[in-house]
């Protein structure tokens, strides 16, 4: 059967190609379109369902590309599971605000003028638009997968020693807390030794942002940083002088320890020393909040915007734990402050360091190291955000892939 060259037939043949795991971009497909199996109605009329929008189609193409890329040496179509996932992607719209569902551009075939958005080559779509549609699909999959219950809090033994309290950079503090608990030292007790974990301020702000997102906030990194900078204030956990003053009044300045931690390992080492423990505990995975790459945090942020309208308040934490569990492991890397706020952050960090030096506290490490380092990109990297969305969708839909850089179930 010779390919039908009407725009509708070309589009539908491409849809069929993508559904079966094809990865040919639209522009190339037009050069050599495949056959359209046809799904006309019994009376020969056109199919009832319109052709999906360009973003949905591009999402499916990228899913297929990602699937193929993560299983080198294992050729062959992905199979029914992929087609089911593709159909889910094609059958839903992107959540929230974005571009409308755009028709496919077929050169030489102009649509009606004055009505409707202009057609587009899906390969020219902004990456953010494909991410948006992907997040909608991911939200469906996460809701379906169901919540993960909160882990039980460790119980502290009566009269356990030392008594201690941790505060500061929330993710690093969580790393330390969990490692200590696993070694039998559970936070709490009267008249504690107080350990304030002081990270470089930009790292600290990034940890606060990630923690808030992991707790359901939909705020972007640049908006979050800008809010604090404009107010010339610090998030509560970063206002270490205030925390130190509070605890010094309760337990004495000598029992307030400022631990300078420019890495998770350094924090645990210094805390062990501050608490007088004989052995440094081993790091433990699976903290809450988790240490996530900025792109992983950004995926959760985007997911939060959808979950906020999809599920009630009390269901969200469990689903976010599920989403965190489904995200593939990606190495953490620094997230720098947007350029406009760096001078402010340097100034604030110097003030924090000065206030802590003059407080009479036990300082472990060099307080000059809490000045922002400005390492890494100033925004989560969008291509990697998309890759994470694709990988998480594929993994969650139980499509098993193996191979270099691939996923495992």
């Amino acid at each position, binding site marked *: 059967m010779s390919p039908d060259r009407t725009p509708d037939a070309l589009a539908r043949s491409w849809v069929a190609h993508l559904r079966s795991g094809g990865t040919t971009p639209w522009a190339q497909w037009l050069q050599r379109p495949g056959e359209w199996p046809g799904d006309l109605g019994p009376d020969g009329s056109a199919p009832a369902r*319109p052709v999906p*929008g360009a973003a949905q189609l591009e999402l499916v193409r990228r899913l297929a590309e990602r699937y193929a890329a993560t299983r080198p040496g294992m050729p062959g179509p992905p199979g029914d599971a992929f087609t089911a996932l593709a159909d889910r992607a094609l*059958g*839903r*719209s*992107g*959540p*929230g*605000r*974005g*571009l*409308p*569902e755009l028709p496919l551009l077929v050169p030489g075939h102009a649509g*009606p*003028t*004055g*009505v*409707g*958005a*202009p057609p587009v080559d899906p390969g020219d779509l902004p990456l953010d638009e494909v991410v948006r549609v992907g997040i*909608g699909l991911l*939200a469906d999959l996460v809701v379906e997968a169901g919540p993960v219950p909160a882990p039980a809090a460790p119980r502290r033994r009566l009269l356990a020693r030392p008594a201690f*309290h941790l505060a500061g950079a929330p993710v690093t503090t969580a790393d330390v807390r969990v490692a200590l608990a696993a070694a039998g030292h559970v936070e*709490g*007790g*009267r008249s*504690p030794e107080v350990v304030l974990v002081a990270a470089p301020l930009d790292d600290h702000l990034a940890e606060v942002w990630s923690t808030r997102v992991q707790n359901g906030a*939909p705020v972007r990194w640049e*908006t979050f940083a*800008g*809010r*604090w900078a*404009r*107010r010339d204030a610090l998030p509560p956990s970063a206002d270490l002088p205030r925390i130190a003053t509070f605890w010094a009044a*309760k337990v004495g300045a000598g029992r307030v320890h400022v631990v300078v931690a420019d890495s998770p390992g350094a924090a645990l080492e210094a805390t062990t020393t501050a608490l007088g423990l004989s052995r440094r505990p081993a790091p433990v995975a699976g903290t809450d909040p988790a240490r996530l790459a900025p792109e992983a945090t950004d995926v959760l942020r985007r997911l939060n*915007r*959808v979950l*906020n*309208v*999809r*599920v*009630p*308040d009390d269901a969200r934490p469990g689903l976010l734990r599920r989403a965190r569990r489904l995200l593939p492991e990606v190495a953490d890397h620094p997230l720098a402050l947007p350029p406009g706020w760096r001078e402010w952050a340097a100034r604030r960090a110097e003030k924090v360091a000065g206030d802590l030096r003059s407080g009479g506290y036990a300082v472990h490490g060099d307080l000059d190291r809490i000045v922002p380092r400005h390492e890494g990109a100033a925004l989560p990297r969008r291509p990697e955000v998309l890759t994470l969305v694709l990988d998480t969708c594929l993994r969650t839909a139980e499509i098993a892939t193996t191979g270099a850089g691939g996923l495992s179930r």
Partner: protein
Amino acid sequence: MTSGRKVIVHVGAPKTGTSYVQDLLFTNREALAADGTLYPADRFDAHFLAALDLMELPWGGLEKQAVGAWDRLAEQVRAWEGTVIVSHEILATATPAQVRRALDSFGEDAEVHVLLSARDLVRQVPAEWQENVKHRRVVGYRDYLDKVTDPRRRGTLASWFWGVQEVPDILARWGASLPPERVHVVTVPPPDAPRGLLWERFASVFGLDPAAYTSSTGRHNPSLGVPETALIRRINERVNNGVLANEDYRQFVRELLAHQNLSSRQDSPRLTLPPDVRAWAVQLSKTWIAVLAERGYDVVGSLEDLRPTPVEEEPVFTDPDHPDEDLVADASLDAIVALLRESARLQATEHALREELHAAARELDHARGLWFRVKRRLVRAADSSALAAWGLRAYRGLRGSSSRSA
């Protein structure tokens, strides 16, 4: 098989009297139900929340109240025998998949009608910019016009505009599965038309006697003049980015300043289009009128109402990006006075509540008795006295308290 259930979905467009109609329907919902017409709403914004749910739209935190709202609305629709009216203007932006979900949710046996109210583009474009400004946007007027008139339609601002204002496209999406006689276009009459004509047109589609339902709360979406809109935009520049929370913005900027105070300044210059954009809008209107005429929809009013009035009948263009600063200053004074009055009112309320709280605390203290007061003193003393702290520990140990120190 039909059930006798007729569902009329009013999907927009914004700035065509939708707030007025929704207020009327909500205010008279009990009388309507008694007469066989259901407007399923337990709160005035029920259909707005349902629309947010249908389209998974974030909306300044309000979306959290929208979880499950569409399904709840649809359940009420399916349970009714008679006419049901669903109305919200942001439904205009629904995608084909969302439209399918909406129409399917009303039940296979429902006779679904779609209604779109439409006004000429020359009035709609400035009105949409003003809505943007009242929703915290800081985009300047010229910048906004450039984005809207760009044929590439890039960005969320342009996408939203066309999604809620492109009449033929909205009707193509919502009416794709319906015969044209079930797609109704109510045109907004020109400004000099008799008062009440718009409601009569709506009522004719709803199957209602317009004279029987006229009372409303007066909730509506009044327009602002040029200096007032410029003022709100400048306020936005100061209060965005974490300075004012969304709920406070809604209460104080949009409701108090914009709707309750600044909108009453009707003598200030009104928003219009500059000549170049006006010419573009006139040409596009011609195209839309021709397209709509071909489709055979039920037009209530006249497609000629969508043709912009001659330019000679319009006020001269006043640029909101360069407003008369004296007028802006005057509007600012009105805004300050409104805020001062509201502050005074809120302070008086706070004083009264504080008095009530103190009185309640005194009564509670008295009711709890001596032993509670002693315990409270002991807890407070434990912060500064080792003996008291020891005593408290002992007490808690005996009592089996789960209290821990911070």
